[in-house]
């Protein structure tokens, strides 16, 4: 039957003398589902090379500076892991939201607020030492992120607001709160009016893993999140309910799930992950609060989550790839005098090409010969 149909389709095609025909797939292809991210990366490299060429650089050399030089040595590789850690952690959290059709795009705000709360707690202990301080600081960060994420969640469930707008706008609110705190009440009394707080005590810092490198214990938090999320998604009743609620709240209600609670729960998980990423930044490489706790990790993690197909393992790879764009941008700035914002251009292109190649999930391109 199907064969006959295809034949008919082809016959129509002959008549129209088209060389290329786009045909809808009967079923989204599983292989393509995981191949499109790879395709998107290659397209990004190609387009990036083209842009470098137009700007007057040798494309291959430029791409080398961007993607290979930064991670060629041990230090570079550890920096890669350092940048990938928050991306991975946030993206895992976001995948809970995105999988259940909740569009939390305010992870940057949840990260910032988590950093504010944990930073505040760390500052309370600034002149104390003790093993108990770090766990409290970490908890505080997670709770801060959760609190901040609960705002769009509660507004969505009880007042039908759009979580995209609310979560996005709260990002700027949290950044302004941080700004106010580091300039005003929390600024370092001995800091010559620099917009930053005191340094945290060593007991409030995540341990460094290797002497001389900046990579810290936060990476274990990220890996734990990966394993936990995989287990929750695919093996638990909670994961099943999340999936159902994601597809249809009406069905969730009919099955007797507590649909609203589910929305709030995924936002809380996502907020906790973003908050933890914030903790990782300020108690890891930074060691204090200042204006720039995150180079937009919360936004970039959205790209990571989708590039990784919302799959825990995919997200690990995606976070590594996207982390390179951060490093590459810095290298390119140093060696080639290209502004470091090129990194964001690459992140944008990845997302752009990923969304574009998703078209192939639902359609296939058929090449046919010329008639006569």
């Amino acid at each position, binding site marked *: 039957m199907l064969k006959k149909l295809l034949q008919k389709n082809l016959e129509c095609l002959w008549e129209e003398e088209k060389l290329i025909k786009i045909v809808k797939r009967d079923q989204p292809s599983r292989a393509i589902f995981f191949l499109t991210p790879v395709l998107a990366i290659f397209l990004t490299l190609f387009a990036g090379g083209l842009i470098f060429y137009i700007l007057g650089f040798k494309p291959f050399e430029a791409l080398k500076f961007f993607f290979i030089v930064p991670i060629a040595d041990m230090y570079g590789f550890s920096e890669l892991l350092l940048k990938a850690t928050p991306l991975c952690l946030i993206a895992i959290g976001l995948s809970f939201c995105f999988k259940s059709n909740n569009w939390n795009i305010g992870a940057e705000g949840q990260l910032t607020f988590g950093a504010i709360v944990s930073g505040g707690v760390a500052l309370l202990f600034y002149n104390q030492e003790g093993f108990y301080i770090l766990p409290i600081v970490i908890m505080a960060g997670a709770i801060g992120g959760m609190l901040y994420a609960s705002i769009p969640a509660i507004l969505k469930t009880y007042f039908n607001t759009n979580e995209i707008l609310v979560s996005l706008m709260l990002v700027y609110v949290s950044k302004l709160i941080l700004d106010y705190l580091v300039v005003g009440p929390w600024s370092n009394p001995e800091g010559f009016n620099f917009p930053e707080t005191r340094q945290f005590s060593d007991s409030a810092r995540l341990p460094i893993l290797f002497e001389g490198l900046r990579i810290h214990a936060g990476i274990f938090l990220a890996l734990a999140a990966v394993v936990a999320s995989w287990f929750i998604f*695919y*093996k638990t009743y*909670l994961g099943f309910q999340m999936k159902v609620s994601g597809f*249809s709240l009406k*069905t969730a209600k*009919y099955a007797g799930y507590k649909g609203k609670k589910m929305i709030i729960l995924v936002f809380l998980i996502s907020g906790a992950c973003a908050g933890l990423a914030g903790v990782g930044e300020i108690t890891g490489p930074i060691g204090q609060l200042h204006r720039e706790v995150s180079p937009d990790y919360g936004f970039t993690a959205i790209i990571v989550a989708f590039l990784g197909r919302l799959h825990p393992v995919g997200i690990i790879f995606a976070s590594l790839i996207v982390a390179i764009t951060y490093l590459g941008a810095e290298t390119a700035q140093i060696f080639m005098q290209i502004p470091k914002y090129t990194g964001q251009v690459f992140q944008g292109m990845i997302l752009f090409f990923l969304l574009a190649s998703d078209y192939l999930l639902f359609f296939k391109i058929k090449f046919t010969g010329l008639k006569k």
Partner: protein
Amino acid sequence: MNTNLKISNIIKIYPGCIANDNVSLEFESGKIYALLGENGAGKSTLVKILSGVIIPDQGKIFLNKNILKLNSPLDAKKNDIGMVFQHFNLFETLSVFENLIIDSDETKENLREKIELIMKKYNFLINLDVPVLNLSAGQKQKVEIIRCLIRNPKVLIMDEPTSVLTEQETSELFLSLKKFSEEGILIIYITHKLKEVIRLCDEVAVMRKGKLVSVSEIKNENIESLANKMVGQNLKTIKKKKAKTSTDQLIKITNLNFISEDPFETNLNNINFSVNRGECLGIAGISGNGQSELFQILSGEIISNKNSIEFNKNYIGDLNPQERREYLMAFSPEDRLEQAAIPQMKIFENVALNNFKSSNFFKNGLINENKIKEHAKKIISDFNVNTDNIELKSQFLSGGNLQKLIIGRELITSPDLLICFNPTWGLDVGAINYIHETLIKINEQDKSIILISTDTDELLKLSDKISVIHKGKLSKIMNAEEVTSEKLGVLMGGGEID
């Protein structure tokens, strides 16, 4: 003024199905033509081609011997082809008049005069200045018809126009259609209701699986012959055995009220009824009169007063659906694709949506996949779902198979009461028969059913007792033998019977 509409060799192919397979037809004005077929037979595709919504892969359309190129609905309008769709395309908050002038370039004064003339001529009684949302379904349809008539159409296509109308409104519609026909408008009437074809039309074209099966005059046909052509097999007629009269009360609803905050929902007003074991209570009504709210209250999606629902001597009004299932209730909602099942999930995952305690689908918070799959296989074989692959996403099941899966999922726990809402909506005759047989069978096993349906024939066939819901109020409960579809029609329209 004679109109001749001819379509020749129309082919339209969608991925996975041939919607129109070489269809050729000829229509002449002065007659009413029926285009008959089951859901999915290709009627709608053909009509959409005639109204310019879809462009055929092949084939030509001629109006009065001139070839027609219909690339958009606008082209159809320009060529005097009017179309009234099954679902109304009206702006609810605008007035009737505003809706009518929205796509016209004539001045308001001219149009008002013209519209009033049309209404007078055909005896349509509609206040032009009230918002459309205050109109009944029948009146809304008249607005749609007037919108076509303004343009003096040569061809008027009606797509399943009676699905939302009462018996009385249907009669009025038929009178108007006959009048239009006498005035030289060519009328094409699309339906799957056989009785209407016999009652209204002069000629009938039957479609099945994309192909034109027959074209004949009504006087040579009867309901059975048309049904057989439409389905392509001799229909078994199923008849319900007279139920044993049981006095064992299973569920009792007392003083149930529901006031919604949503203006598009219907409030329920003092609902009282009870159902005995082995009995089927049918609840008739035109859609939008509170059925959906009633279903949700009975299923527990909307929580009500604890004492308002007594089931098997327990008060359960405040329990959610999952908790109610533990008391052996089961629910089959109206919306298969957005509520009763999730098309993007696999068949066995959909089975797990009915999670009752003894199922052991989820143990200690973990998914017990083997148990679910085992259960799914049993449902598929017990309820004749036409697939053997429980890993298949349920979007690839036809409507009928999906409904069998849902009904199967609900019934496999052998519940005492099944509450179903339009269980055969949009299904083909084969699947409808299967569902009806299943429902009769569970009644015979002394289980009860509450059947909320907008299909009067279905209600008369399956129910022991029937009540009608109108504007959130339930009529008195009648014995099914005393009820006729005419009586139901009066009640459904808000009228009174002695």
